[in-house]
């Protein structure tokens, strides 16, 4: 599945998106764990509370939320607009 990154996280991971291989549907927690495995050096930045997650452009707080293959998934740092 394709995952999007923004802002500081995009720079730290060195890519605006990446392809992660994992069976879907999967929970947000599972996708996050796969991402951490893919970028072990950035484990802390990808952890709950450090990287927010959006599914289909909506912020998700429940790590049990299921993700399907058609979903748009993004990870990014806490927001700082306004």
């Amino acid at each position, binding site marked *: 599945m394709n995952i999007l990154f923004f802002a500081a996280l995009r720079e730290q991971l060195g890519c605006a998106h990446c392809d992660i291989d994992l069976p879907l549907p999967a929970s947000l927690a599972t996708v996050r764990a796969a991402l951490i495995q893919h970028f072990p050096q950035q484990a802390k930045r990808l952890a709950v509370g450090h990287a927010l997650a959006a599914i289909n452009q909506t912020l998700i707080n429940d790590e049990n939320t299921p993700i399907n293959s058609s979903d748009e998934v993004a990870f990014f740092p806490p*927001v700082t607009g306004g």
Partner: protein
Amino acid sequence: MSTENASNSQHYIAVQQADFDVAHEYAELRNDNRSDGAVVFFTGLVREMNQGAQVSGLTLEHYPGMTEKALQQIVADASTRWPINRVRLIHRVGALAISDQIVFVGVSSSHREAAFDACYYIMDYLKNRAPFWKKEVTSQGDRWVEALDKDKQALDKWQ
């Protein structure tokens, strides 16, 4: 790159590089509006000191698509909570200099209480839920602005 909320013609929401004109926005909140006795608006500006460093400018990044969706949701929530009528919400993206305008939130209502509260609410939620990120140019190099606990705690007053 601007989006208007089709579901409510009283709500104008835009994410844009271009600057905005407060007089124009105020006029849009006021013109041909016989029912509202109050207009409250807020503008956010780039300031030169932030988180202990001298700032010479900043770049605002966002998540196109999600940003507009998040702002629409925040405005919709505010209009469920208070009897407000017109809302104009503009947030700029791209490169900005010191004193540049970043954000405009304007709300009209028949009475001031709802307009004040809704304007404050929209800004508090925008700071926590809308996917914008600031990268500052400082005397010590470029850096991403850190999210602050006080912004998160600001939501407590709306619980």
